[in-house]
């Protein structure tokens, strides 16, 4: 049923950003004051078997902006990200307590299907993973096709739009039928971004999307993230603090499963309130 799938794919987030009020608190101190909240994480704990990966995290991720999650390896930042589209559930033995509200809806509610959540919350992985048996265009459209969209004109339009959004169109428009894996590493990652964008998610999660890319490819992906935030909420996990500083409005610092500090990126890097954050961003550990 293509209409239904289309409407799923088209439900772009209509975010009525409230007009900035003169005289309100400076945005530097109140990260969530300026806009709608995309994710409201309430007392979230995540366990893998007996190990606790996330400890009682409270966090409000604002919509229509880029939020970076930083922290040393093993601090739970990827787990926190994967909880946002229920991907962490794929790990055997994973369970959680607490709540995540996405625009007011409980992501883990009893009648909420993880498949539907993942259609609304797209994800880009650390290592680019285009499907090896599919061509470039098939890779971009696979999410729509396998969810029942058949309308050729619509698919063609979506293909071009998505590849343009991920700044790949000019490089691949003459080779759409070549295998997705024939592209370079940086192009493959942008192909994966186009694939995630093709289903028009409301939110895009990125799990260290540039850690396998060279500086030029990284710069392209970062430009892309900048361009996306006018239409999307982006949550990005990164090891690279310069990257967090470059692309994000807000930054959350995780350490050993706990959220240590969350605030405007500038504040986290220039004037952190917590000594642990300060030690990490100034490179004294991690």
């Amino acid at each position, binding site marked *: 049923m293509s209409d239904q799938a289309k409407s799923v794919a088209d439900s772009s987030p209509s975010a009525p950003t409230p007009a900035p009020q003169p005289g309100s608190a400076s945005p530097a101190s109140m990260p969530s004051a300026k806009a709608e909240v995309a994710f409201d994480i309430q007392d979230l704990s995540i366990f893998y078997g007996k190990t606790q990966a996330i400890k009682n995290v409270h966090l409000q991720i604002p919509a229509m902006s880029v939020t970076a999650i930083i922290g040393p390896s093993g601090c739970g930042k990827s787990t926190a990200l994967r909880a946002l589209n229920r991907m962490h559930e794929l790990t055997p033995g994973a369970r959680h307590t607490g709540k995540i509200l996405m625009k007011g809806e409980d992501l883990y509610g009893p009648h909420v299907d993880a498949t*539907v959540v993942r259609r609304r919350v797209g994800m880009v992985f650390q290592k680019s*993973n285009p499907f090896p048996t599919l061509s470039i265009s098939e890779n971009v459209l696979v999410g729509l096709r396998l969810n029942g969209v058949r309308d050729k004109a619509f698919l063609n339009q979506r293909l071009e739009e998505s590849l343009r959004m991920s700044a790949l169109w000019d490089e691949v428009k003459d080779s759409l039928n070549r295998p997705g894996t024939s592209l370079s590493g940086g192009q493959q990652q942008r192909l994966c971004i186009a694939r995630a964008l093709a289903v028009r998610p409301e939110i895009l999660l990125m799990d260290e999307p540039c850690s396998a890319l060279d500086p030029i490819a990284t710069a392209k992906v970062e430009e892309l993230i900048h361009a996306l935030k006018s239409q999307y909420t982006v949550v990005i996990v990164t090891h690279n603090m310069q990257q967090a500083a470059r692309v994000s409005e807000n930054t959350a610092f995780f350490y050993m499963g706990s959220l240590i500090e969350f605030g405007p990126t500038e504040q986290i890097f220039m004037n952190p309130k917590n000594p642990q954050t300060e030690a990490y961003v100034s490179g004294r550990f991690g």
Partner: protein
Amino acid sequence: MSHHDQYRKLKSTFMSVLAVFCALLVVLPLILVFFYLLKMGFSSLNLNFFTKVPTAAGENGGGMANAIVGTLELMGLALIMGVPLGLLGGIFLSEHGSERTNGWIRFGADVLNGVPSIVWGMACYTLVVVPMGGYSAFAGGLALSFIMVPLVLRTTEEVLVLVPHAYREAGLALGIPHWKITVNIVLRTAFKGIVTGVLLGLGRVAGETAPILFTALGSTSWNHSLKEPIAALPIQIYYYAISPFEDQNRQAWAGALVLIVIVFLLSTSVRMISNRRKRA
């Protein structure tokens, strides 16, 4: 060069020669058997062999047309009955089952893989031939499919497990239902490996004699129904090889040659499939 170095070099050369010798020793029987078969069988191959059914004992002439077709038919039956079960079982092991159940299923499949093929023949005799009141092509195909199921199941599982988890995750993150990812992405990625496994299984059952001796029985005429006995190359070879008539002995060699060629073609296609580069 020091004395010690020379000694080491000598040792290394000796071991290399030994390894090459052992490798040749392994291949030698294959070469000998194949050339002997060619020598003995090729002279008996003629048009009649491929177009005629066997003549009465003692009469010269006739051929194994019915047995060649019968072997292909039995392989087809084994394919139809065995592959779906093995394939779905392999998908279950790789994509769904829990560690615990999988352990038991794998163990079961490995035990079944080791069951002597004559036991399958006896099992099918009891389960199918006796209740149906006679030997049949169906019973033969079923016996061969029993041999194929655990083989296909294990190879399917093995090649599906090799498909990187990242592809499943990428599919799930797009909101694609699990079963569609399995069919459209995982199976498609592992397709060559699955076909290879199926062809190897077919090659294995093509030459099986014991399980069909009890079930398909063999026949000297054309088979017209799944409920009738059917001729097969291995059975025909068996009877002709122990026959007192020289012409039948010669035809047994020819039949063995044809059978080897069928198996050879299967394994060659396996190699071609696994060597073929990813489609461009």
